[in-house]
Structures are given as structure tokens and as C-alpha cells.
């Protein structure tokens, strides 16, 4: 899947499926759509590697269906809510898992026309997440060695949680200045940006795009 279609095609597919899910009001149609998305997940190998996430979304959809039913909706409307949720979140999972971050960034900038600075911020923030997780663990340890106890009631835990946040905060703000300088030194913000990732659409991408458009028009015609 990763090699077969370009990220932009997958973004289009995601929004097309989401649109179809909103379009359909019949549980049977939605069931068909969910089956279709599941087959996509299966062929992309995502059911295998991200089975837990796929399952969690099912649980979540069921809960939402129950909320609908308990809140006074009919059984049919509960099915619609649950299945619609399932289609919309599954297809998003497909997009996120089957696309490398590098390719996604390139597609967001070159094809979705999102300014590069924002795409960069997104990947850079994700780069720091594991570092900060390690950092917060180190802070907790340092504080434990100074007698801090990270257990107790909600308020107590919240308070000691803030003790951990603050050194993390100060350290990262201290970093921000050097990072800003490093960005300037490395030519960040230049108009002329290139990407190593090649995300140019190929023949099969255009075929899928046209197919998506035709199907969407067909569905709209069918429903109204």
C-alpha cells in the first residue's frame, strides 16, 4: 500500500470515505462501507501490525452506538452512529499507519499547500516526544531522591505532577533559543524548498482519484 499509492491519494481516499459515511443513512450501506475499509486495512497489513488500535476503534464505535441508544435513539440510528464512526476512524488509521511521516509532510506541503513551517513544526514536535518522556522520567527520579512521593489523592498527584512539568518546561524553553538559531543557520524559512521524498502522483494515483470522484458522484445521485 505504502509503495502502491502516493500519500495525497490516500488523503483524498480518507476524505472521500468520510464523506460517503456521512452521506449514507442506511445501516446496510454503512456496513458495506465498513467491510470495504476493513478489506483495505487487511490488504495493507494494518490489521496485523496495529490490531490493537483497529480493535479499540471498534470498542469506541460500539460505545458511541450505545450512547445513542440509551440517549433515546432508535436501534437503527444506533447502528448508523456506530458504523459511521467506525468507517471514519478506520480510514484515518489507514492513512496514518500506511504513510511515512516524511512522505506525509512532503504531501501536506507540495499538494495540500500547507506552509512548510507548520509541516515542519508537526514532525519536529513528534521528534521531541520520546526525548521528553525520558526527560520527565529523569525528573521524577531526581525528585524521588529528594523525598518526593508521586502517589496519593488526585489533588496530591496533580501537584506532584506539576513539579515534574516545571523543570521540563524550563529546560525546553532554554532549548528553544538555540534551536531557533540552528534553524536560521540551516536555512529554514527559505522560499525555495525541496523534498527528498518523491510524492508526485503516478498513473495509478490518477486512476484512483478519478474513480473516487465518479463513485462519490454516483453515491450522491443514489442518495438524493
Amino acid at each position, binding site marked *: 500500500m505504502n509503495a502502491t499509492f502516493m500519500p495525497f491519494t490516500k488523503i483524498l481516499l480518507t476524505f472521500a470515505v468520510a464523506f460517503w459515511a456521512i452521506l449514507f443513512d442506511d445501516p446496510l450501506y454503512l456496513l458495506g462501507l465498513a467491510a470495504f475499509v476493513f478489506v483495505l486495512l487487511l490488504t495493507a497489513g494494518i490489521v496485523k501490525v496495529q490490531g490493537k488500535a483497529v480493535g479499540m476503534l471498534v470498542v469506541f464505535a460500539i460505545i458511541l452506538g450505545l450512547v445513542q441508544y440509551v440517549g433515546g435513539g432508535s436501534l437503527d440510528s444506533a447502528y448508523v452512529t456506530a458504523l459511521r464512526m467506525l468507517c471514519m476512524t478506520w480510514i484515518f488509521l489507514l492513512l496514518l499507519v500506511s504513510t511515512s511521516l516524511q512522505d506525509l509532510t512532503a504531501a501536506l506541503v507540495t499538494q495540500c499547500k500547507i506552509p512548510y513551517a507548520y509541516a515542519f513544526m508537526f514532525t519536529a514536535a513528534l521528534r521531541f516526544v520520546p526525548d521528553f518522556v525520558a526527560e520527565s522520567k*529523569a525528573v521524577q527520579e531526581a525528585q524521588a531522591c*529528594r523525598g518526593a512521593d508521586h502517589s496519593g489523592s488526585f489533588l496530591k498527584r496533580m501537584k506532584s505532577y506539576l513539579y515534574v512539568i516545571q523543570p521540563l518546561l524550563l529546560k525546553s524553553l532554554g532549548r528553544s533559543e538555540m534551536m531557533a538559531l540552528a534553524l536560521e543557520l540551516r536555512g529554514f524559512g527559505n522560499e525555495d524548498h525541496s523534498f527528498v521524498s518523491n510524492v508526485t502522483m503516478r498513473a495509478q494515483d490518477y486512476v484512483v482519484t478519478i474513480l473516487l470522484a465518479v463513485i462519490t458522484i454516483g453515491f450522491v445521485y443514489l442518495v438524493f
Partner: protein
Amino acid sequence: MLRVSDVAFGYVPEQTLFKDVSFTIESGEFLAVGGRNGCGKTTITRLLVGLETPRTGRIFYNDTDITGWTPAKRSQYIGYVFQQPDRQMFRPTVAQEVAFGPEQQGYSRAEVKEITAQALERVRLSDKADAYPPLLHRGEKQRVAIASALAMQSEILILDEPTSGQDGTETKELLGLLQSLRKDGLAIVLITHDMEIIASQCSRVLVMGNQTKAFDGSPEELFTKRDDLEALGLERPACVSLSMAVPSLGYCASMEEFTKRMITYKQQGGR
């Protein structure tokens, strides 16, 4: 004072980092912990403060078994200064920063104030009590971290590579401070890669290697008797190598000692 008995440890079940490790730490000792990267020298000190739990074996403090104690509870006996001292700092003044520990221990406001003032006095930072910690120099931050550990009123002070990144002057000041704390009866445990510091400052060396305690004895014995220094990730300091090249000179713990003796030796040899 602190006794480690037959401790084994590994981060993952399939792997043993070290086993059969036993040693004691007495007050007034200046103990170096050395060894190759990844041999467990930091890990063994993490076991002492309770950041890790041994797979087997026990740890005693004055014959009380503290193996199951949390780091917070052990902090009254053992202080730990981490490698990057600014990691833990988060309060608006140095005094408040140092006060964090005693506050957690439940001392009254007046007591906390006194303990803090004493700790700052001991590291000679009283004049910086109201300073904003992030703006301090590297050496001063290090001393704030030491004061924070002293404020726990602990009797053992463990420092993880405190001289890394510090320049000659800062290192000299730090070592002077540690020696004075040791004279006051504290036990100092220093994790270090610096062979010159081990030779010139420490009363004892513990080397981790070969998945166990590879050496426990005086720096002199380590640097003159062991022929597996390189395998243990250690190196003979220059002063020891040079003193060994002149057999009648005897063991020299520092370059200063070497040059002094060498000059005397030569003068006598000249006569």
C-alpha cells in the same frame, strides 16, 4: 554503614547486567566507582538509592534492611546528584530549590529555612540564595544540586560524573568541596571516568566489569597491580605510569607528587 549483599541485577529478564556484588560503604570514605560504559557503574548506584530493585540480594543501612524502601524514604540516608544538575531545578530561587527536599520530608517552615541556610553555607552559596537557578554558571548549578542533596541530611552523597563538562577550575573547586564534606564525616561516592581524579582523590575504588564487581581496593593497588585495566575500560593515569618507570620513586597519586619526588630523586641521585 551501607552494606550491599550478593546483589544481582538486569534490566531485562534475559540479561544479567551483574551478579554476586557485595561491598560496604563506611562514613568518611571517598569511593570511586569506575568501569567501562554499560558495565553497570551507574546502575549499581541507582540500586543504592532505590531507583532500581535488585533481582536478588539485599541492601542494608546500619543493619536495617532497606531493599524494599522507596527512593523517597531512602533519601534521608543517601543523597544523589545527577549528571545534569539543571534537570531537576524548577523553583524561582536557589533557596526554594534547596528547600524542596526538606519540605517533602515534612519539616516545619522554620526548620526548612534553617536546614536550607546550612546546606547553602556548606557549599559556599549563601550569597546566591535569592538568585534565579537557570541563570547560574555551570559550577554553581552543580553546587545547588549538592546543597539540595545535603539538605536531605543524608550521610552518603553519590555523584554521577560531576566533573564532566566542568573546566579545570570548576573541577578543582568541586573536589575541594567534596573533600571538606568528607572531613565532616560524609561518605562520598563518585562515579567517574577520570583516572587522575581516582588516583589523586579517592580512598577506594570499586570497578564494575565482567558482569560483577571486578575490583574493590585502593587506587594504588588498582593502577599498579592489575594488568587488565584496558579490558575493564580503565587507563593508568600518567602520574602512575611515570612513577612506575622510575622504580625507586614509589607510587605517585598525582602529577604534582611525581614532579616533586622526581626532583628530589634527581637531586639526591646527583649527589
